């Protein structure tokens, strides 16, 4: 996930890229600097503003959802707040959202395809990790708590099948 975020902050004008849960908890982040992206080793004083921004952005997303709720609109998947000093661009996906903080002169439309790709990669990554950790989670018959007797596979006899007795 950090690699995906790192690839985003390599673009000039993107100050930070973060994945935030819908309740405002920072999951991962990368900062864009003059010397290149930094993601893995953010110190406490670097992480704190990002965490604050993540929480506040989550709050804003919640306010927007509440505001458009009476119109029976679905949850927005992309929200952009352009301001004089920075822009916040949010791209929501199930349970979380990708947050970009950009310089004010960056056109948010320029980030659309980048964010789409990043979200697709992240969703694929999350699905792959879910599949790896819970291989039976999506099966119709999850295994029982106690070991069961091994069963031989059922063979249905069909007319003309000589092997069936």
């Amino acid at each position: 996930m950090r690699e995906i975020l790192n690839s985003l902050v390599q673009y000039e004008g993107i100050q930070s890229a973060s994945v935030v849960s819908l309740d405002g908890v920072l999951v991962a982040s990368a900062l864009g600097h003059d010397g290149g992206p930094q993601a893995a080793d953010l110190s406490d004083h670097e992480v704190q503003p990002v965490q604050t921004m993540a929480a506040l952005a989550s709050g804003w997303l919640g306010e927007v959802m509440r505001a458009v709720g009476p119109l029976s609109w679905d949850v927005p998947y992309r929200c952009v707040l352009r301001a004089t000093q920075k822009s916040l661009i949010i791209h929501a996906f199930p349970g979380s959202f990708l947050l970009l903080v950009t310089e004010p002169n960056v056109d948010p439309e320029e980030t659309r395809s980048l964010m789409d790709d990043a979200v697709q990669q992240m969703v694929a990554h999350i699905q792959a990790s879910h599949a790896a950790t819970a291989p039976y989670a999506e099966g119709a018959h999850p295994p029982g708590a106690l070991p069961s007797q091994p069963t031989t596979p059922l063979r249905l006899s069909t007319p003309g099948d000589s092997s069936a007795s």
Partner: protein
Amino acid sequence: MSFLSSFTSKKRIRAALRRLGQDPSAENYVAVAREHVVVGNLQDILRVCSEGLSLHPGNAELMRIAERARQLQLDSRIRTLKQDLSLSPRPALWRELCDVLLECGRLQQAEETAEEWWSQSGGGEATYYRARARALQFFNGFRSTDGKVAWDLALEAVREMPGDTRPLEIQYDIAKACGAWADARKVLADILEISPGHPQHEQRFRDASQRVHDSKSLRAGLAEVEATGRLTDSPESAGSQSNVAIRPLLKRMGADKDVKAVIFQRGGTALVQGLHGGTADRTTRAVREVGVAARSSARRTGVGRPVEVLIEGSFGSLMIALGNSGTAACWSQTYMNPEHAESLQSITGATVPSKGALA
């Protein structure tokens, strides 16, 4: 740049200049400017852009290249000034560095530089720049603490540099912006003592005197600016713009098949195109609440004054422009048409920062 690449660049510049001589179109000016970008000569880029913009005013690409070149030029100047300051710090260099940083819009950095200047040598001028940087942060972000700190710093600068009207002008701007007309009048009286007979200040003094009966305390005014996200002297508060000019524009936007609704709000009044009855009321309320949420979130996150909000979902896209003259919104079934976005900005007077491409 190697000799070979320099030679080929010059050749391409000459070819672009020949094309420009035959046809002085905006595209050819852009082509010449881009060739100069490859060489990296900022003076030439600015010269070509300036010439092109005088013939084709408002060309977006030329403006973008010129703005970028100007930023690079200022960045280079900032680096030079910092090097000079590390060798021999003196007031003229500090002053120029603060001015350049303020011009670039790097307000936080300008304030930090002024603080460094003040901690090294003190003096009213350093305090004045601290006040100016903080006042600009207040006008951008509408945070009352910024306004109060800027006011106090300006007061300190007034004590440190008597006879200079600049810190008093900062105080006047803050008092006027938050409707503290009694304070504004007092500051103007002090300015007129220093420069008697100044026609602009006299006019301002007469205006402030007329509005003193509406005056708020500075603290209350700053709190109101923070709560509403609007300055008292903005056109939106004054309600000076006529709805008559806005209605045809809303109608024209509403005629687009893709547009479901266009809304303009100022104060308690709303003009709605495309929706009727309860749906219009609910949508207008939602737009207002999204605008209020954007203003309060922008203050909390410190991203400056909000100018535009875009929401996209299965419902389509909703763009809201938040300007000095009001709030305008366009609800579209698909992606937002850039022309509609520009129309919203023109209605509300929202100034979106110049757009640049990702590199």
